[in-house]
């Protein structure tokens, strides 16, 4: 909603504040003012002149040589506008004038003839092209004949007007009208309000001789008023009205159209004028459209309707889509003499349905959709009639003819001083409440500290105590509310166990050198089946596709975060960021349903992607590329930190390197995987060797306890023993380690692999794996023979199980 301050001043005197101060006050009290637009950039030295003479330029066909009287002097001006004529009153920029865009007007010579100024178009005076009336769009603007010569054009055209841009919340439909804004402004400034003149002369002719009104859908159209206005002289509307409409962002057309638009903005009540002589009957019938019924709206489009749409008909065929747009056949034109002026209440649902079906949105439909003030419908019609009498020389027949089942009841809301203060935490007195209600012009009855407030129908948003509480609070001023802290029961706040786990994981991984990312939960079709963790894949989840996505890149609920992480890696590589170590925690969405009937379960997961060099330190010849064991080390460290034992099993997964992929297990259950992505996929996505992991944190949660107990520091020394086995190449180091741990328990506290060797000095197909064993007894100092005995048991057991022998 654009609010011209000049226009607003018709109802309420705002001269005590500047437009900026007014905007600030309105914003603080209820309606956000997004900005202030000065209607046009300032110009100076532009006055009204009379074209005394106008003849063709001696040396140019398309130029006119004009003698213009601007009051204190006469100027010879060369003008190129096609519509300049002798006898016109025009806007003259005198020499020394400055026009918008810092255009300076100087004396000059055009084709050898002196020109002392410029006759201006509205565009040259700074009015946006789209608001300029079409009849003067290609030429200069012509003032009414009675305009005084020498008058300041800036003032006459309202070019100094400030326009406030309201950002209305849906509840404040009342401010979709200048009167609504005037009520609000009067309340804020605590000033008088002057309402517009609605007086209409009585006429001997009866509207009922011309028209009857029937409504077949009273639920959608509880009020229809038909005014008959005769003897109309179609011409431009008065300058002040054209100015007002342009400031509000509406292009002036002619007096009848401008008056209906003006009243629409003034009252918030849409009106429609039909050309009575082309209406086709003497009967207005409002009804639901038939299915597949057709009509041509005044934009020239043929519309196919349904029974959801309300139409105005002449008894036979539709002449308007109720509240949305009129028909082409009955549109007012230059020859119109008599109009049928419609002032009606169309229900929000009816108009919303038509807007939805046709895609037509207008200033009218926007107001009907939010609900117009039932007490202003007929008054708006009268106001338009008043203006038609005055500015179109029209005669208003005695009427209007109405269909009226409109509920105009005003709601009442009861408030008490005590409850107001109880809810706000304030000390507002009864007298202050009284003042506020008076400023808002809400009638009320007072009993002790209780107010029974009658809510005017213009404020359809107020229905319950809390609504009235807001009215009192905003007028009292939120700045005046005290700062208090809750007095209620106190409780200890905190994180859930899962949130603590997430924070622990994040802090560990950051310390380990990984960066946290945030990717999109919605992925694309190519990625949806990719890199789903084996334990999740085993549940056979069904991909969930959005029925109405915004883009094909984001149209599936993800089953894995890894594909989106890989996209981030590729994005960085494409920008020469080659070394990436990323992790993310987030949900994937799991369902077995082909067609969703309930929410998918949301599975919290940890995923990561690592690639490039982990360490680059060339001058000391140290560098380390990210590899499987680096990533595995990070995860082993993480789970050691979480005090959750994990193990790894070689596995094969689609899209993963067949020889470099492991599933991750806790207590024998698969909880995720890690490994290198398949080289074919790496090539497709433009990745280097990239390692990824994906872990189900919901399962990890089952094993996570965030309480740590005390374990005494060992008092007795540990003894280390190294041992190397020679085994077949396909024997897994981890399997041997497991056997060592099992056989060595409880004295073997720790087993470390410190060397793996293949090649010279070993038979073909064999490898050597060397282990460090740490023996410790918490109770006493270990004896050599104890260790030796255990060592022998381990060797025997490993050799038997893995067909190995000890390397000497």
């Amino acid at each position, binding site marked *: 909603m654009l609010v011209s301050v000049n226009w607003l001043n018709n109802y309420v005197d705002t001269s005590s504040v500047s437009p900026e101060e007014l905007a*600030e006050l309105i914003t*603080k009290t209820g*309606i956000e003012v997004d*900005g202030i637009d000065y209607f046009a950039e300032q110009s100076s030295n532009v006055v009204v002149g009379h074209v005394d003479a106008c003849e063709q330029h001696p040396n140019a066909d398309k130029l006119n040589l004009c003698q213009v009287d601007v009051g204190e002097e006469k100027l010879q001006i060369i003008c190129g506008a096609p519509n300049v004529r002798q006898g016109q009153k025009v806007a003259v920029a005198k020499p020394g004038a400055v026009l918008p865009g810092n255009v300076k007007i100087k004396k000059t010579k055009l084709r050898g003839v002196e020109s002392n100024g410029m006759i201006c178009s509205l565009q040259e005076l700074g009015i946006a092209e789209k608001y300029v009336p079409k009849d003067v769009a290609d030429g200069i603007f012509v003032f009414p004949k009675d305009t005084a010569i020498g008058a300041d054009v800036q003032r006459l055209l309202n070019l100094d007007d400030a326009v406030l841009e309201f950002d209305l*919340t*849906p*509840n404040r439909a009342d401010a979709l009208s200048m009167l609504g804004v005037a009520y609000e402004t009067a309340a804020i400034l605590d000033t008088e309000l002057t309402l517009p003149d609605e007086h209409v002369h009585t006429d001997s002719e009866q509207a009922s001789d011309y028209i009857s009104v029937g409504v077949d859908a009273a639920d959608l159209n509880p009020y229809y008023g038909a005014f008959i206005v005769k003897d109309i002289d179609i011409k431009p509307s008065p300058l002040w009205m054209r100015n007002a409409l342009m400031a509000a962002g509406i292009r002036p057309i002619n007096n009848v159209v401008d008056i209906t638009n003006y009243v629409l903005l003034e009252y918030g009540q849409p009106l429609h004028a039909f050309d009575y002589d082309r209406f086709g009957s003497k009967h207005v019938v409002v009804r639901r459209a038939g299915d597949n019924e057709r009509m041509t709206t005044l934009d020239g489009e043929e519309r196919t309707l349904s029974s959801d749409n309300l139409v105005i008909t002449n008894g036979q065929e539709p002449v308007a889509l109720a509240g949305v747009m009129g028909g082409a056949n009955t549109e007012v034109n230059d020859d119109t003499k008599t109009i049928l002026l419609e002032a009606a209440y169309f229900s*929000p649902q009816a108009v919303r349905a038509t807007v939805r079906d046709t895609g037509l949105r207008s200033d009218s439909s926007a107001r009907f*959709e939010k609900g117009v003030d039932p007490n202003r419908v007929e008054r708006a019609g009268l106001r338009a009639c008043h203006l038609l009498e005055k500015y179109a020389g029209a005669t208003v027949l005695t009427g209007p003819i109405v269909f009226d089942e409109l509920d105009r009841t005003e709601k009442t809301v009861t408030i008490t001083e005590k409850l107001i203060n109880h809810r*706000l*935490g304030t000390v507002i007195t009864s007298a202050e409440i009284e003042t506020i209600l008076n400023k808002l012009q809400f009638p009320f009855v007072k009993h002790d500290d209780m107010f029974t407030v009658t809510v005017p129908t213009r404020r359809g948003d107020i229905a*319950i105590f*809390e*609504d009235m*509480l*807001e009215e009192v*609070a*905003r007028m009292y001023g*939120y*700045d005046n*509310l*005290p*700062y*208090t*802290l*809750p*007095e*209620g*029961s106190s409780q200890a*706040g905190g994180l*859930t166990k899962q949130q603590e786990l997430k924070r622990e994981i*994040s802090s560990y991984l*950051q310390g*380990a050198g990984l960066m*946290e*990312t*945030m*990717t*999109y939960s*919605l992925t694309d079709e190519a990625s949806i089946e990719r890199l789903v963790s084996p334990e999740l894949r085993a549940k056979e989840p069904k991909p*969930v596709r959005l*029925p*109405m996505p915004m*883009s094909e890149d984001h149209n599936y*609920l993800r089953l894995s975060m890894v594909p989106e992480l890989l996209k*981030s890696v590729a*994005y*960085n590589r494409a920008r020469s*960021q080659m070394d990436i*170590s*990323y992790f993310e925690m*987030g949900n994937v*969405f799991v369902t077995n349903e082909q067609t*969703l*009937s309930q*929410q998918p379960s*949301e599975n919290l997961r940890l995923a990561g992607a690592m690639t490039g060099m982990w360490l*680059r*330190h060339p*001058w000391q010849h140290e560098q380390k590329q990210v590899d499987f064991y680096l990533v595995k080390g990070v995860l082993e460290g993480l789970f050691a930190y979480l005090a959750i034992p994990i193990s790894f099993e070689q596995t094969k997964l689609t899209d993963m390197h067949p020889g470099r992929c492991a599933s991750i297990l806790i207590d024998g259950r698969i909880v995720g995987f890690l490994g290198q992505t398949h080289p074919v996929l790496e090539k497709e996505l433009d990745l280097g060797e990239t390692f990824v992991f994906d872990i189900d944190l919901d399962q990890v949660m089952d094993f996570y306890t965030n309480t740590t107990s005390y374990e005494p520091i060992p008092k007795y020394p540990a003894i280390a023993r190294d041992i190397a086995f020679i085994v077949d190449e396909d024997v897994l180091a981890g399997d041997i380690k497991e056997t060592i741990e099992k056989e060595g328990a409880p004295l073997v506290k720790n087993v470390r692999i410190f060397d793996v060797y293949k090649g010279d000095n070993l038979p073909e197909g064999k490898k050597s794996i060397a282990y460090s064993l740490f023996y410790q007894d918490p109770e006493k100092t270990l004896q050599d023979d104890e260790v030796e005995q255990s060592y022998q048991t381990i060797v025997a057991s490993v050799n038997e199980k893995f067909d190995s022998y000890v390397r000497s």
Partner: protein
Amino acid sequence: MKEQLEAIRREALAKIDKAADLNTLQDIKVTYLGKKGSLTSVLRGMGSLSKEERPVVGELANNIREAITNEIAKKTDVLEKAALEEKLEKEAIDVTLPGRPVHVGGPHLLTSIIEEIEDLFIGMGFEVREGPEVETDYYNFEALNLPKGHPARDMQDTFYLTNELLLRTHTSPVQARTMQQYGGSQSVKMICPGKVYRRDTDDATHSHQFTQIEGLYVDKHVRMSDLKGVLNKFAKSMFGDDRKIRLRPSFFPFTEPSVEMDISCKVCEGVGCSVCKQSGWIEILGAGMVHPNVLEMAGYDPEKYTGFAFGMGPERIAMLKYGIDDIRNFYTNDKRFLTQYHHVKGGTL
């Protein structure tokens, strides 16, 4: 004999003085003090001395031994120091060469902001709750006073999966769920961070996915001034003690009265600048008193219980705080963006 001894002393001390390395000193020590050394051999001839002379010569000999020993020790010390210095000199390195890089990670900026807000409200006794991202129409809209057909419920804005299921458009359903869980008889004091989704085309200021953090406090006597007090505390901790807040009327279907909270602009200190669009204020969050319909639907008697709620967008806070001009930065995960915010804590807006 005395002359002999004095000669040894002179000779030995002169040699010690000249000695240039530890080996020479060792040789000197052997030459004079060793078993076959000259001092020793002189002393062996003591037997030929008279009874009176013996103690005198003996004392002299001991003095000389002591003097030589001391001098050798002193000189050893000097030579050792010199040798060490020489060695260390040779060990000198070029300190301008680069060090071995340490791999560092860090949090995502949005996580930093969310955790900072979480910790602040935990300190005020709020618990942190989360809820599903795929929500039912009921919890996302109906339970929040947005019945079917409500004009503020713009279908175009919501990713519907079915007629009843959708990607949540705000984290408010967590409030409804939590209230229901508390069953209408207990106070609720919670914040809920999380991801939300809107049917928007991604551009510099729109994202189909973003984050929100909302708060809710329901109890027997919650006043609007409590909301103002809590938000003021939040604003001062988050943005600086010198910040002022202001509440402006606004509209949300789930609160009445509804307000928006602005904080005074740091850049211009309220005078008006391009950051605050000349207003002196920056909009930070929406809030209000919980609408009685919302309380009622969750099982709370609005005659007995009142509450306040607030909600904000970490992206917006981050963008304002750091002057980030494109919301897509949060989701493209450009390393050069992520690393800029690895040390974010506190700070000003």
